[in-house]
């Protein structure tokens, strides 16, 4: 636990961690203000159509918009910095000059990257909720495709589930980022690698001829949670999405551990 505490304090004292949190809090507010003050005669798309009904939808809109790129970059940043950041500052060798197993150090640093990613995702939801309720009120939601309206309690539980799913949906990015971080001494390279892989996965996911292969891509089930707000129901895709993320975690977690344990530390 001592190592977890030390690494968590180190990470949260970084200016860019604080900036990431601030941006995660600020963007939902911007979206809310933009929707509130925008032209009401224009017909918005997707979740935006529901935003003005209740403030409980704004966090879902923010999650939908920010999970496509912003949260991916943030997750990649936290993950890519784990080992490569220490190597770039020359501090990695001193961490490893303590009787501290390399695997343990890696796992603790990966855990911190996950925690920071989850906290950022929760910050998006909380900010969206606060601003949404302030601007659009606390009301049930009438679904666009019919059915019983969703009560505020149901909306809150859907919001919690959506936040958890989006956070878990970033697992593959973090796992790949941590793996790249063990390969290079450049945090920017590791971050770029993780984001690049996500972009490639997103492109491949749009190539229909790939068929069932697309189901294993980390981006395939990214939006599966949105049915919680558009139809008021969950789908099997949520479970499939979690399984895919877990598979990427196992594969890249194992690769990162194997490589970091045998790596020569030259920086």
């Amino acid at each position, binding site marked *: 636990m001592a*190592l977890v505490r*030390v690494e968590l304090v180190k990470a949260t004292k970084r200016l860019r961690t604080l900036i990431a949190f601030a941006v995660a809090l600020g963007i939902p507010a911007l979206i809310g203000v933009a929707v509130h003050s925008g032209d009401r005669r224009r017909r918005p798309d997707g979740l935006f159509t529901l935003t003005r009904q209740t403030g409980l939808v704004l966090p879902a809109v923010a999650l939908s918009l920010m999970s496509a790129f912003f949260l991916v970059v943030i997750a990649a940043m936290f993950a890519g910095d784990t080992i490569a950041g220490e190597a770039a500052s020359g501090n990695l060798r*001193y961490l490893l000059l303590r009787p501290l197993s390399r695997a343990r150090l890696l796992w603790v640093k990966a855990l911190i990257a996950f925690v920071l990613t989850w906290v950022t995702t929760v910050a998006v939801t909380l900010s969206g909720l606060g601003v949404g309720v302030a601007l659009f009120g606390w009301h049930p939601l009438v679904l666009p495709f019919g059915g019983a309206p969703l009560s505020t309690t149901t909306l809150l539980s859907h919001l919690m589930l959506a936040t958890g799913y989006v956070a878990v949906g970033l697992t593959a990015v973090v796992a790949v980022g941590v793996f790249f971080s063990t390969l290079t001494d450049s945090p920017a390279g590791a971050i770029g690698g993780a984001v690049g892989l996500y972009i490639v996965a997103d492109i491949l996911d749009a190539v229909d001829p790939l068929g069932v292969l697309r189901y294993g891509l980390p981006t395939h089930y990214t939006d599966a949670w949105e049915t919680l707000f558009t139809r008021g129901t969950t789908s099997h895709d949520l479970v499939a999405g979690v399984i895919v993320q877990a598979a990427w975690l196992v594969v890249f977690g194992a690769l990162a551990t194997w490589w970091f344990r045998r790596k020569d530390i030259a920086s």
Partner: protein
Amino acid sequence: MTDTIIEIDSITKRYGEVLAVDDLSFAVGAGEICGLLGPNGAGKTTTLRMLVGLQRPSKGEARLFGRTVVPSTRDLSRVGVLIEQAAFVPHASGRDNLRWWWESTGQSMRDADLDTALRIADLGSAIDRNVKTYSQGMKQRLGFARLLLARPEVLILDEPTNGLDPGEIREIRELLRGLASGGATVLLSSHHLDEVQQICTSAVVMDRGRLVTAGSVADLIGTHGVVYIEVDDAPRAADVLRALAPVRNVAVDGNGLIVSASGPRSDLVAALVGAGIRVETVTAQQRLEDAFLGLIEDKDAS
């Protein structure tokens, strides 16, 4: 016979086609201060990295306290290490860096020798400033403070006085002597040969990954020294000496000759007298630097 604390046993390190360390062996006994010498690219840093488990040997093994070194070995808690430049978390204070480093293995700061560490660091109020505002010398002093937290029995130091001013270098010299007299074993690599001559009791000389020689500093200087000889006919004396096998270099300086040679000085004097040259003065210039350069030149010639 002192106990052997550090052993490098037939160690080889290869990076693809490049042979960084080639079948190197040497040992350092308890309480010794041993200098690891060699030109750039000799393999000194790679050797020290293998000794502390940061890199794995391609062949052979390193041992500390008689046990084979593996990454993260428990024996590291008894070793203080400074490899190349001291490095820290730049956005945290010196004090936080010391605390985090120490507490990362679950130890309490109450068990650390913080007083000694802070005295050595001598950073005053700067200890609470972010490390990114430190000069290289301040970082190096903080690096010494960090390695002393654990009251180490062995110190492994790679260019430890880089970035320090003469006063700080003298303090570090006294510190190392004090630690050695208290029983600590020190292995240090340095380019400052005068510093090594002043601090070290023994030395290991490497070149291109291989061992050139190892022994006491006194022996190295004695067999590979430089001699100043004043004669009545310097140009002719220079010709006589250049013809001798142990002589590596002769420079004429007025009536004097600066001669770099291995072997006894009496052989040089005998050769000059035998050639009818009057020898006025013979003075040994006992400098490790000359001995070191002589050894490297000998190796190149062979």
